[in-house]
């Protein structure tokens, strides 16, 4: 049982199906159609710089909204009886089990012209297009990834002993002070993993913008999808830049998380 | 108990084990005889569990041989050895009930179902758990789990049963019961038990043979009474029972000097004027009138212990403990009479009056009158001395000049505390660094078997050039 051998198949698997494909992306990004070295793909990729920025921006805003919405619910959940906690966890998780396309499609149904929300607003005398703008895209993202923010926050905050909070209150801390001095510092690991779990997929997602956004609202994932089938060199270059950006983000986030945890 | 040589079942010869450069077992030899209750006793980290794991086959020694009934069994995996183990945390299989746990070994051996049933039943009767077959093991109490673990191991009919601190997790009352029960079970089944514990009382009450271990070596092997009455050194005396341990000098055969007084004893062969350790058990001191004894002290504390009074007596700056059925009030002067037979003389564990070591000067400043020296991989400064760079120094430090750095910054880091023994007026601590042993005196209690930073007080040092070297 002190053997290391059982892990060999998986290590080989990782090399073949994780490492080699990434190396291939790297290779493809730096070559042209004939396999000669070139940086032309990156020049082409640079043409999508504005899409890139917009994707990161949308991901950032979506992550922020998720955090703001999820933090209170995570805290509320963590302070309930164990049975209520389990039920609420279930309630939050069930929508996650629905197919991701169906969840987005549901919002198309809700927001479309003549759809339920539009009809309701018309009764109130408000006439506006709900679908086909950046706001709808962000709404879709928040809906899609909110559980990924709630669950890590909840599980970290559930570990905070009620006695700790009571002790702080006993020592004369007000509710806000307790939040600031006890709950927040202890919940930082949850914030870090929640932000990771929301930001990474929302920055790289595709289809959400195609379904909910307007003609101009495409994201970098959609660009990769569109380009890759015809020009996999440029597609690889964009994918590589996207990966690098996410990696940098994660490094910064973890650095920040560690600092916070110490302080 | 027959102590015939032919009765030896398991024999360890010259066993040496090392983990990450740290010696765990230092060339130990041990024989386990048939049907005996043998206890390996020692503080945590002394290598007792490692010894057990070698017998069980869970660990291979780097050197040395393990023989089972005369056959070498090095390299034989646990499942091919005719010994079974009762693990520290019982390690029952949580997914099986009591019956299936006990039957586990026999099912692996594919014994017939009827036989398995019969033997489980017998075993449950022996461990006093009749009718518990269907219970889930997680529903049992600690003591019951313990007994299932013993039954599970014993039902395999091993020649030797290994028990790794099996009573450690039980509360005091249950422990006492189980001690008695274990002894009963051992006698009923006629199996040799090798029992590992750090509890000296457990060892003394249950065993036929006690093996006292410390720091990877066996200090003493013997019957409980022998180990108690004639400990071979201060460590054993200190570890087993309560004892007054003192420094003394053996003037000649049968004559020993303790605290400046010459007393008569029965030990011989230590030579003349040899520093020795002396053990006197608290119950062996007779309280008499001051004029009737050579050693006179003042009672400073009395505690009633039920059967006797425990008195602390100050005698010539030394603290003595006396057990007596008669109480002498605090403040009274008493004489302490000890008959020669009860003065146990032992060789010093580490014979040194001073710590002497060599240091290499790696840089020196004449103006500041300061040198930097290197000792075993550590470098540090010594002030108020000047020697040329490159010279080798001989430094002597009295035990008082050594201390453990409270702030964590010492001259030599990671020094191992080998033993701490209270010698009446102060603790005598033996330390071990990479290359040598150190003797330290301290008024503070330190934790044995830990690593600490060692600090020197060079104002008490004697520093000179090493003779015959680096002379210009």
């Amino acid at each position, binding site marked *: *049982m*002190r*053997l*290391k051998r*059982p*892990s060999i198949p*998986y*290590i080989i698997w990782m090399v073949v*199906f994780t490492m080699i*494909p990434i190396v291939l*992306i790297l290779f493809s990004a730096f070559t042209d159609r004939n396999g000669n070295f070139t940086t032309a793909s990156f020049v082409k990729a640079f043409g999508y710089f504005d899409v890139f920025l917009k994707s990161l921006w949308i991901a950032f805003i979506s992550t922020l909204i998720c955090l703001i919405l999820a933090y*209170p*619910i995570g805290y509320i959940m963590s302070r*309930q009886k164990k049975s209520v906690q389990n039920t609420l966890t279930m*309630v*939050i998780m*069930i*929508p996650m089990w629905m*197919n*991701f*396309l*169906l*969840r987005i*499609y*549901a919002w*198309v*149904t*809700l927001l*479309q012209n*003549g759809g*339920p929300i539009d*009809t309701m607003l018309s009764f109130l005398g408000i006439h506006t297009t709900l679908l086909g703008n950046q706001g709808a895209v962000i709404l879709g993202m928040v*809906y899609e990834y*909110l*559980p990924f923010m709630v669950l890590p926050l909840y599980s970290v905050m559930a570990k905070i002993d009620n006695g700790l909070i009571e002790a702080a209150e006993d020592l004369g801390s007000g509710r806000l002070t307790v939040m600031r001095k006890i709950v927040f510092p202890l919940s930082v690991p949850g914030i870090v993993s929640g932000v990771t779990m929301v930001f990474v997929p929302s920055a*790289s997602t*595709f*289809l959400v913008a195609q379904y909910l956004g307007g003609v101009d609202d495409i994201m970098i*994932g959609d660009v*990769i*999808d569109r380009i890759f089938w015809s020009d996999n060199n440029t597609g690889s270059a964009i*994918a590589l830049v*996207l*990966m690098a950006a*996410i990696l940098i983000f*994660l490094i910064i986030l973890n650095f920040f998380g560690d600092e916070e945890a110490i302080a | 108990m027959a102590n015939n040589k032919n009765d030896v079942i398991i024999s360890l010869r010259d066993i040496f084990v090392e983990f990450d450069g740290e010696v765990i077992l230092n060339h130990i030899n041990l024989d386990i005889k048939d049907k005996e209750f043998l206890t390996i006793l020692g503080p945590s980290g002394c290598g007792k569990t490692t010894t057990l794991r070698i017998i069980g086959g*869970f660990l291979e020694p780097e050197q040395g041989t393990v023989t089972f009934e005369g056959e070498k069994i090095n390299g034989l995996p646990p*499942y091919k050895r005719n010994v*079974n*183990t009762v*693990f520290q*945390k019982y*390690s*029952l*299989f*949580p997914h099986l009930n009591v019956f299936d746990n006990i039957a*586990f070994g026999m099912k*692996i051996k594919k014994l017939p179902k009827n036989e398995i049933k019969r033997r489980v039943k017998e075993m449950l009767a022996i461990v006093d758990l009749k009718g518990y077959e269907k219970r889930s093991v997680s529903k049992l109490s600690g003591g019951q789990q313990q007994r299932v673990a013993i039954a*599970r191991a014993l039902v*395999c009919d091993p020649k030797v049963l290994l028990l790794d601190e099996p009573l450690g997790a039980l509360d005091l009352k249950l422990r006492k019961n189980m001690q008695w029960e274990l002894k009963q079970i051992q006698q009923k089944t006629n199996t040799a038990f090798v029992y590992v514990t750090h509890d000296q009382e457990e060892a003394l009450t249950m065993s036929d043979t006690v093996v006292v271990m410390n720091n990877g070596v066996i200090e003493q092997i013997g019957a409980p009474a022998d180990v108690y009455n004639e400990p071979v050194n201060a460590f054993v005396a200190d570890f087993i029972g309560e004892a007054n341990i003192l420094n003394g000098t053996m003037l000649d055969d049968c004559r020993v000097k303790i605290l400046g007084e010459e007393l008569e004893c029965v030990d011989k062969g230590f030579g003349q004027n040899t520093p020795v350790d002396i053990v006197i058990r608290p119950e062996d001191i007779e309280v008499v009138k001051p004029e009737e004894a050579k050693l006179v002290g003042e009672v400073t504390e009395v505690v009633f212990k039920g059967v006797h009074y425990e008195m602390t007596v100050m005698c010539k700056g030394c603290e003595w403990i006396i057990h007596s059925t008669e109480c002498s009030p605090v403040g009274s002067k008493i004489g302490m009479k000890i008959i020669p037979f009860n003065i146990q003389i032992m060789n010093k564990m580490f014979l040194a009056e001073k710590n002497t070591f060599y240091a290499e000067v790696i840089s020196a400043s004449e103006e500041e009158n300061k040198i930097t020296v290197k000792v075993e991989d550590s470098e540090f400064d010594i002030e108020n001395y000047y020697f040329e760079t490159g010279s080798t120094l001989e430094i002597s430090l009295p035990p008082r000049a050594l201390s453990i750095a409270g702030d964590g910054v010492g001259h030599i880091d990671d020094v191992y505390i080998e033993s701490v023994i209270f010698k009446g007026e102060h603790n005598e601590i033996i330390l071990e660094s990479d290359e040598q042993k150190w003797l330290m005196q301290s008024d503070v209690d330190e934790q044995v078997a830990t690593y600490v930073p060692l600090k020197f007080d060079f104002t008490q040092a004697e520093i000179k050039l090493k003779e015959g070297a680096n002379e210009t």
Partner: protein
Amino acid sequence: MKKLTKLYTALIIVFMYMPIVTLILFSFNNGKTTVWKGFTLRWYTDLFRDSQIISSLWNTLLVAFLASIFATILGTMAAIGINNFKGKKKIFIQNASNIEILTPDIVTGVALMLMFTMLGTAFHFKMGFVTVLLSHITFCTPYVVLNVLPRIRHMDYSVYEAALDLGCNPWQAFRKVVIHELMPGMVSGFLMSFTFSMDDFVITYFTRGSAFQTLSIQIYSMTHQRISPKINALSALLFAAILILMLIVNIKDRKVEKQQAQRV
């Protein structure tokens, strides 16, 4: 709960469930738009008559089942091995395993597609069931490792030694004892793999070739063409299936918890 927290919790739940409820409602609407035209079940009958959807469902289940079985075996073995590594090597392998989780799906998808296309031209095969299965195993296994590793770390190692002591060889000890200790981790790893595989669209989309259909792909092509209420019916059925499954799991958990509580 205080009023404010109750209200907030309710709002979040409404936000989470409103879209799903809407889809379910419209699955019974006798009309193709979002205007209510009366109750009908015809979208459901249409759905069951659609052989493409039914075959995609089977494909999805088959891939999910095989991928999670394989990932559970591979991941459990890996976790046992990784646990026996020490220091930097251990951290390196664990991080390598986590790369797969942190890599955006779309990058994993295109990277695998790139490799499969290259191999395909070299060895004359087309992407399809096998490439999808391989890809799914790839992204599922790290989750199994993540679930099993803590079980191994917290396992009482002497239970394994006890089995050896009682005459098991290492393989018997694993089969009769260790696997029972790891089972909860393996089960949750399996369930996670199964759901991720069922839910996956992006990676399947890039590695499926042209002919192989899963439910996600089917939904994608349906939503891409024109809005069909059949999708609503499908959503309603899937939701019902999930709900029933979750309730069963939850009731079972409660029972186990009760039993454990009784023991204490």
